[in-house]
């Protein structure tokens, strides 16, 4: 019983330290979903899939990231660890429609 508890605790620690993976799509120059959520304190891997026929640039001043994603391609962008808050991101080439928020709790 004690051994099981110890293993259980260790497993929780391991999960807490693990990177979070969030998937994001760009379709018709919009983000799907437009709002994504993550936990504070551990790294976040954003998997951004550009499903459009044209290149987009994933950019964020709040997250300090910019990445060109060619048409029909994916990009893995690492952010964090972040403090709680709202972080805006956008598609620089279609800023009027491609807007999103990363909510960190």
């Amino acid at each position: 019983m004690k051994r099981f508890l110890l293993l259980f605790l260790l497993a929780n620690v391991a999960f807490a330290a693990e990177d979070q993976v969030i998937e994001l799509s760009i379709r018709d120059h919009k983000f799907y979903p437009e709002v994504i959520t993550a936990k504070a304190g551990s790294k976040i891997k954003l998997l951004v899939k550009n499903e459009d026929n044209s290149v987009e640039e994933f950019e964020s001043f709040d997250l300090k990231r910019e990445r060109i994603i060619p048409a029909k391609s994916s990009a893995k962008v690492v952010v964090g660890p972040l403090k709680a808050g709202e972080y805006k991101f956008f598609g620089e080439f279609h800023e009027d429609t491609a807007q999103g928020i990363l909510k960190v709790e």
Partner: protein
Amino acid sequence: MLSVFIIIFREVFEISLIVSIVLAATKELPGRNKAVGIGFISGIIISAIIAKFADKISDMADGAGQDLLIALLLAIAVVMVGYTVIWMAKHSKDLASKIKKTTEEVAMQKASIYALSTIIATALIRELTEIMLFTYGVVVSTSLSGAAVIYGVISGLFVGILVGVLFYQGLLKFQSKYIFKVTSFLLILLAAGMASKIPNFLASAGYLTEYSSPLWDSSKLLSERSIAGTILSNVVGYTDKPSLMQLVFFIVTFGALFGASRIKRV
């Protein structure tokens, strides 16, 4: 068409700022025009090649190839600016004199020309690849007519370059007004600023993510998105939410270059 113009102008504007500083700071350097010419041409050619292979580069290193490439371009630029600053400090007397140069000095001058070319080329590559990919994307996917796209690109280029020229002339006037030379100091700030951007690209690729949280947020005072903020960002690497890692990169680069340019040796 307006959105095309705005995006092209923004990118060209960023290049113009850096090129203007380098040009103003190296006005007294012999062969500087040739260096800039070489830098421009090689920058344009390499950008076209990279834009063509954007897919393959993005796929490299698990999708982080692009970030590592930009980090590398910035690092090369920092080293080249550092080299130029140290070279200018060492030869400040020679630059003023008209005495014939020894063969060693001629060779050193050639090296400094290539350093300048590299600074210009790396700055161009960083922004031109974006411009080329964006323009291609617009042409392929949009309902805008070819003429509208061309007009947007050309006017964006024109206004961006115009602003750069004005900035350059402003810098020259500022320099001649004040006795102490701002040239090397500007270059050192430029290099430190570029170095401070490197941690962002490394972190984006998953490397060096420690000490990446912002130490403060000065966006209410001066937002990075504002015009003044953009200028400061490209000139001295201003960011409204700097991380400790960024500050370390900035201070180390600044200290190393400032110190090296001050050493009085043969």
